[in-house]
Structure formats: C-alpha cells, structure tokens
C-alpha cells in the first residue's frame, strides 16, 4: 500500500507521539518544580513508543508520505530496537549522577528528539528523508555529547563531533546529489531501476557512492570515518555514550543497509542480492569491514585510561564484524546483521551500565577504578561485566557467540575465507583486552584507593535484565532468530 500524507498519520503514531512529547517536555520543564519527574515522564514516553512500534508490527507493508518513508518488517525491527535503546537510555539517565547534575528537562527532550530522528533513519526510503533524519539525529547528538557543560572533555567531544559530522554529512549530501543526477530520482526503488538499466558510467557512480559512504560510515563509526568516536565516547555522559554506541549506530546501519540493498542492489532470487551498475564496491566494502574490525581491536588493546574509550574502539571493531554480514549481500547476511545488532544492543548497553554503576560510586572511569571490583562490594556488577565482556568476545554460551556465529556462517557460506579468517583472528585479539577488564575485576585485589561500589535497585534491575537476556539468548535464541529472519525483507 502507498499512502498519502493524511492516511499515513495513523501509521506514524510513535513518531507523532515522540514529537509531541519533545515539545511537551520543554514546556513541562518550565512548570514542574520536581525535576526528577521529567525522567519518569520520558521513560513513560519511550515505553509507549515501544508499544506503538509493536502494534505496527502486524500492519500491512507499504510506504507512507508519498513513498518517502517505508513501512516494512525491516524498518519496524530497527524501530523497535531503537525505541528499546531509547527506553534503556532514559532508564540509565535516571540512575546517572552525571545527568542528575545537569538541566534535566532539556536533556530528556533532546534524547527523545534524537530517538525521533533515528526512527525515521530506520525507515527512510528516499535520499532526502534519509539526509534529513540523519542530520536531525546528528544535531541532537552534538548537544548531548557536550552535555556535561563544565567538563573540558565534553566540550572537546562536542566540537569534534560537530566538525567531523559537518564534513561527513557535507560529503554525503554531495554524493547524494550525484546519485540524483545519475538516476534522476531520490527514491530508493526508482534509483535502483534507473541504475539497473545500465546506462550510467560506473566511475561517477563509484565516486557518488564513496561520498555517501562517508556519511553513513561516520554514523556507524567505520574506519576511516571513526575518528570522532573515541573522544566523543569519552567526553559524553555515560548514558549518552551508550545511546550513541547502540541507538545511533543501529540507526546508521538500518539506513546503510536499506540504501545499499534497495537502491544499489537487486534481489537475484534464492536469497542472493547483486549490485547494480558495477561490482567495484564489493571489494571496497570487504576491505572496509576487515580494516574496521582490525583497527578497532588493535587500538583497543592498549586503552587503560578510560573504559568508555576502550568501549569506543570495541564498538568500532563490532561495526567491522557487522559489516561482514553486509559484504556477502545475501539474506543470510542480512538476518545475521539484524540478529547481531540486537545482541550487540544487549551486551554493549550492559557494559555501559556497569561503567556507570562504578562511576556513580567512585567517580572513576579508568581501568584501575575497576581493580578488584568483585571483592569490594561490586560482585554482581563484576559478574555481569564479565558476562558482557565474554559475550562481546564471542564465547558460548552467550548471545554474542550466536551473533558472531551467524555472521561467520554467512561469510563462510559465500566462500570468503580470507574475511572469515580475519574475523576469527580478530576475535582472538579482542579476547585479550576484554579479558584484561575481567582480570582487573576478579584476579587483581583492590589496593584500597578505589572506593566501595554499591548498586541501587534502579540500575540493578536494568543490569539484571540485560544480563539474563545475554545468557538466555546464548542458549535459546530460536525466537529472536525467527523474528530477524522474518524482518530481513524490504518493501516492495
């Protein structure tokens, strides 16, 4: 079904509601005197958005707003993931000392605004919509990254983010203009048809794609567009870092996947896609994946000073892993990516919650602040962190292993042996720094200067849920995989 503007409104409930809530929060900030309620209101809003997306899951696939937004299983899967990421972020923010010190009303409003943009990134079906959504998310993120106003690092983070973001999106919109010139349309489906007719020279297309990739690679923090990530992750308040690592990256992948799979490739039958207008960027994406994961892991090896910085490099490496599912260009790869991003959401968010719990109690984010965590009151967060670290490494019986398993399966099935070997070698390298965190928490004894760690029930509940999900999905992941399988298709 293709709906016009008015008909579309009833299918845009989550986005409309979010937009309304953003405005309402700004207003409420002026009238409510007990600012901690604002967080609760924002939590309620995100919960309603999650339910709203769930309700849409059963609706018929189609496009909204004259074809500019897609309503399909793929988009809804990512919208659900993003809404859940927003929910968890708000939950974290309520329990975060850093956020409690700031101007809360604006903070939550901006988080919700970023979520709104991400929802549109997940379902944009048109270059213009894609660009607007991406810019909307970026603008909100620049503010959030610098939200700890009195910290020099936050200022640096925000400025770096802004400058890199400006360059990347400038390159991207320039690339998009080339694509428009080549294909004569902004809509993904029409671009694909135009390119498939094969009249275009491949060099201009290659240039256009490279430029577009800069914008998308910036959002998913793929090498060499990753430069902002370590500083921004380090400077931003922890819930914001988690939101950028999970929500923003997921939305970036959603847009990137939809753009490449529906505008730059066509389905060949049998679950295999084929590039339209040349094969040159297959090698390009393969190299992008291999270099991104290798760079991320090698750079993470020596990080000690700040765990958020380490997790930034780790998240770069994970972008590389997910890209493996991209390179193969099959349905298997597609659903492996969907599955992995969900698992990545659980374990990465969980890791940030533990970092926050420690920072709340001790004010420290460095590795030494974790020394002997298990032996100084933080046994539960330490165990949870160990589970997340091993899951990020990809060890069974944890969800991260299953995610990697499907990615490697997709790669091996296509016979890309070199990529598979680079991938598994990277897993071994990553073990080294993930295990270093586990070692610091369990094997090292506290020397006394670290301070006791206590976890309140609010953060404990979130951490417990994420931990249980990470373990359970490592043993019984059938339902989630089936959902990813069903969602691995686009309209039309």
């Amino acid at each position, binding site marked *: 079904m293709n709906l016009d503007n008015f008909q579309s409104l009833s299918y845009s409930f989550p986005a409309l509601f979010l937009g309304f809530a953003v405005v309402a929060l700004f207003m409420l900030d002026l009238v409510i005197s007990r600012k901690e309620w604002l967080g609760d209101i924002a939590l309620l809003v995100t919960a309603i958005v999650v339910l709203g997306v769930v309700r849409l899951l059963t609706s018929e696939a189609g496009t909204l707003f004259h074809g500019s937004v897609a309503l399909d299983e793929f988009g809804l899967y990512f919208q659900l993931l993003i809404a859940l990421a927003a929910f968890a972020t708000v939950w974290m923010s309520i329990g975060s000392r850093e956020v409690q010190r700031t101007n809360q009303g604006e903070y939550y409003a901006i988080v919700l605004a970023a979520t709104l943009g991400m929802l549109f990134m997940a379902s944009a079906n048109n270059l213009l919509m894609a660009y607007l959504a991406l810019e909307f998310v970026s603008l909100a993120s620049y503010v959030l990254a610098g939200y700890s106003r009195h910290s020099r690092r936050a200022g640096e983070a925000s400025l770096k983010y802004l400058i890199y973001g400006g360059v990347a999106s400038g390159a991207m919109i320039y690339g998009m203009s080339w694509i428009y010139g080549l294909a004569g349309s902004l809509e993904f489906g029409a671009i694909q048809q135009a390119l498939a007719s094969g009249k275009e020279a491949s060099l201009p297309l290659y240039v256009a794609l490279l430029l577009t990739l800069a914008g998308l690679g910036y959002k998913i923090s793929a090498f060499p567009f990753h430069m902002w990530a370590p500083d921004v992750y380090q400077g931003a308040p922890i819930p914001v870092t988690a939101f950028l690592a999970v929500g923003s990256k997921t939305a970036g992948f959603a847009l990137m996947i939809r753009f490449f799979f529906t505008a730059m490739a066509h389905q060949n039958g049998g679950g295999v896609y084929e590039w339209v207008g040349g094969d040159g960027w297959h090698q390009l994406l393969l190299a992008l994946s291999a270099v991104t994961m290798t760079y991320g892991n090698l750079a993470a090896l020596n990080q000690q000073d700040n765990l958020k910085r380490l997790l930034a490099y780790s998240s770069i490496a994970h972008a590389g892993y997910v890209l493996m599912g991209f390179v193969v260009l099959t349905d298997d790869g597609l659903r492996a990516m969907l599955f992995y991003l969900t698992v990545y959401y659980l374990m990465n968010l969980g890791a940030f919650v533990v970092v926050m719990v420690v920072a709340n109690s001790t004010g420290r984010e460095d590795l030494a602040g974790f020394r002997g965590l298990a032996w100084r009151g933080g046994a539960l967060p330490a165990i949870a962190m160990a589970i997340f670290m091993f899951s990020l490494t990809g060890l069974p019986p944890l969800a991260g292993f299953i995610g990697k*398993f499907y990615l490697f399966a997709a790669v091996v099935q296509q016979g890309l042996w070199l990529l598979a070997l680079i991938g598994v070698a990277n*897993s*071994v390298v990553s073990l*080294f720094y993930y*295990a270093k965190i586990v*070692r610091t928490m369990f094997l090292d004894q506290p020397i006394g200067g670290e301070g006791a760690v206590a976890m309140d029930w609010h953060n404990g509940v979130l951490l417990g849920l994420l931990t249980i999900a990470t373990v359970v999905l490592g043993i019984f992941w059938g339902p989630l995989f089936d959902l990813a399988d069903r969602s691995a298709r686009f309209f039309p």
Partner: protein
Amino acid sequence: MPTNPLTWMIFLPLLGAAVILCLPRNAHQLIKSVAAAATVPPLLMAFSLFQSFDRTIADMQYVTKIPWIASFNIEYFIGVDGISITMVLLTALLSFICIFASWGIEKAVKGYFALFLLLDTAMMGVFCALDFFLFFVFWEVMLLPMYFLIGIWGGPRREYAAIKFFLYTMVGSVLMLVVMLALYFYNDPHTFDLLELAKRAPTYSATFQRFAWLALFIGFAIKIPAFPFHTWLPDAHVEAPTAISVILAGVLLKMGTYGILRINYPILPQGTLEFAYWCLVALGVLNIVYGALCAMAQTDFKKLIAYSSISHMGYVMFGMATFTSQGIDGAVLQMFNHGTVTAMLFLLVGVIYDRAHHREINGFGGIAGIMPFYTGWTALAFFAAMGLPGLSAFISEVLVLLGGWRYYPVMTLIAASAVVLTAGYMLWTMQRIYLGAPNEKYLTLPDISAREVFTLVPLGILVVVLGVYPQPILDLIGVSLHKLNEVVLSAGQGGPLASTGTPPIVR
C-alpha cells in the same frame, strides 16, 4: 524428566552449581558438601554405564537427539561409544576426587566450587556431544571456568598463566569454528551431526580435507599439547591449584586426542592418512623425547610432572596413528591410564606443597624418613609413570610400541628408548626429594592425611588392577576403535588421495 543417564551426568553438576550460588557465602562446609553431592550421582551412573554398556557393537549408545535450533539444524545430540565412555568414566571419577582434593580451599569458596562444577558439566558435555555445534559450545564453555580457576586460585604468576591458556585455546577453537561452518555448508542438507558428517566423508574433496584437517589438528594439538603448541601447559600447570592441575592433565589434555579420534579420523579419513605420519607419528615421538628431556631439566616438582605429561601424551599421538589394532587400542588405553597416573602425581605434588609451601626439587631431601606413607604412594605413582611392568601405563605403552613396530620401526625404537629418559628423571627426582639425609627444616612435617589418601586410593587401585588385567577397558574400547580404524584405512583404497594413501606408503 530426561531418561538418558548421560543428560543427567552432564547437567547434574550444573544444577549443583546453581544450588551453590544460592547458598550463603560463609557456609563453607555446606558448599563443599553440595559440590561433593553433585559429583556422586554422575560417578554412580558412570559405574552403571560401565556395567550395562554393550561391548559388542560399535554404534553409539544411550543416544538422545532433540532439535535445539531447528532453523539451523542444530541438535542436542548426545551418546557414547567405546572411546567416549572411557573418557566419561575418567571424567566422572576425577571430578569426584578433585572435589575432595579442593577441600582445603579457603578463598572465595562459593565461587570456586560453582566454577568447578560448571567445568565438570562442560567436560562431560564435550565427551558426550555428537553434534558439532554442541561439541563446540561445551568445548568453549570449558574455557571460562578454567580461566577463573587458574586466575583467582592459582600461584604467583596465575594471571599470566590464565590468559596464556585462554588465548592459546581460543586460537585453536576459532579455527575449529571455521571448519565447523565449512563442513556444515559443504553438505546438503546442511548438518552439524557428526555421524552424518562422517557418512559423507567420501564426498569431501582432497583440498578441502587437507585444509580442514590441518585447521582442526591445530585446534586439538594445542589442547594435547603437541610440540610446538605446548608452551601454555607448563605455565598453566605450575600456577593452577592442585585439583585444577589434576583436571587439566587428567581430562583436558585428553580432549585434544579425543577430538582427533572423534572428528578428524571419521570425518576426514583421507586427510588423516595423508598427515598421520608427520603430524601424529613424528610429532608424537618428538613429544615423547622432548617432553622427557625438558622434564629432566626442571627444578620445580610440578613443572617436571607437567613436562612428563607432554611426554606421555606423545604415546597417545603415536599409537593412534599406527592404524593397527594394538596401537590404537594402546593409545586410548594410554589416555585413560595417563589420566589416573598423572592425577596421582599432581595430587602428590599438592600434598608436599601444602606442607612445605614450595616445590623446589633440590630443596627437600630425606622425605622418606619423615613421611613414609606419603613416600610409598609417591613410589607407586612414579613407578607407574615410568611404565614399570605390572602397573597400568606399562600395558598401554607396550601396546603402542607393538603397534608402531609394524610400520614405523625407527620411530618405535626412538620412542622405546625414551623410556630410559623417563626412568632417569623419575628416579633422579625420587632420589633428590625422598632419599638421602632428612632436611632439618622439614622434620616436623605430618604424614599424608586420611582425606589425601582417600583421593589417592581409587586411582591407586585402578593403576594396579589395570596393570595386571587391562581387559575391562580394552573390551570397552575394542569394537569402536576397530571400526574407526577400518573406516580410516578403507578411505585409503580409492578416493581422491588413494595414491598417497595407506600408512606404509606415507612412511
């Protein structure tokens, strides 16, 4: 309720671990008792399996096959044949013994026993799994508790040893993961079923078999550990607490050779024939000699035992690559015997270390006069390790050498001569620690305690009984190994590698 005893044997320890996690942190005795209780039923079930196991057929017995993840054809598929049941028996026995060997643990008791039981589950699972995916999961699950058990409760350099063990094994297992996926997609319909994969062995191309075999071999060789992948072992052994060394040497090392027999042999038989000489025979004999020479140079008692393990595992590698019934029977019997003998040796090192708090071989002297009973047990274990006739390791080593003589006389001679080296370092150690004038510092050391004797008795009985009458184990493994041997040898006739096929030609 699951009716398969194997399922219970795998998951009862896990249940015990869950119970322990719910107990209060300071209830040490209760935690230890629960841990012991969780390992008793598997041991009793192992006895009853030993009684009821059908020794006349080579098929898998006590099979359970339940779909796990249907969309990827992953199954919970377990069962045992003659090879795996031997290992299951060994695992059940050593797990039980090691709970008592760990009785003296004081630090974070709850965590220790919970992790130990998790390790127990993983080990049982590896030996029972018949689905490659399930096998891999258990194989990897083993790493986590092992890392913590060495890293938290180990010696001074425990952190280094733990991460080294972890990284080495991880390298092997990621290679295994790639081969696992390659095998899965090579077959249509895709499957992880090890028996089904073995049935399709003739369809695998020569190149595929070569690459897959070598990748799997590296994974398993790290675990055995075969030279040059052995360097993690002395570190891990020296730093690990006594009970964990026992498990490491007694069970974990066997997983390497077991994996080769379970996966490389039936699934990649032509690859096996092609690489058997260099990768198993030559490396095996190198292991025997190199391990023995290294052991001779050690001054740390525990490190010496660790290197002697490397040497003894060489016999397993050599024996299984002879493709004669004596050789391959001897190899699996050696896996079992090494499990009992080395377990005794590590337990005995633990006894003296608990008293003197060091393991310097040259720092003792005349212990025989101070701790006579302890010295008696040590003598039994030392003589068994040397391969003295009448004790169990003699039988298995002789079977290996008999089997080897037919195709590889030179290698057999070298391997046989290495027995002299073994006797050399064992007797020399005996002399330095136990004989001579008593060391003044240790005159007051108490003799071996009842609990320690309790952990040694079952192993001692097995060492003596199997030394005189090895038939119970040989009966158990014979039929399965005979069939496996036939499968591999028949792959040499015909098939892509026929010309380079059988062992005599490879030589």
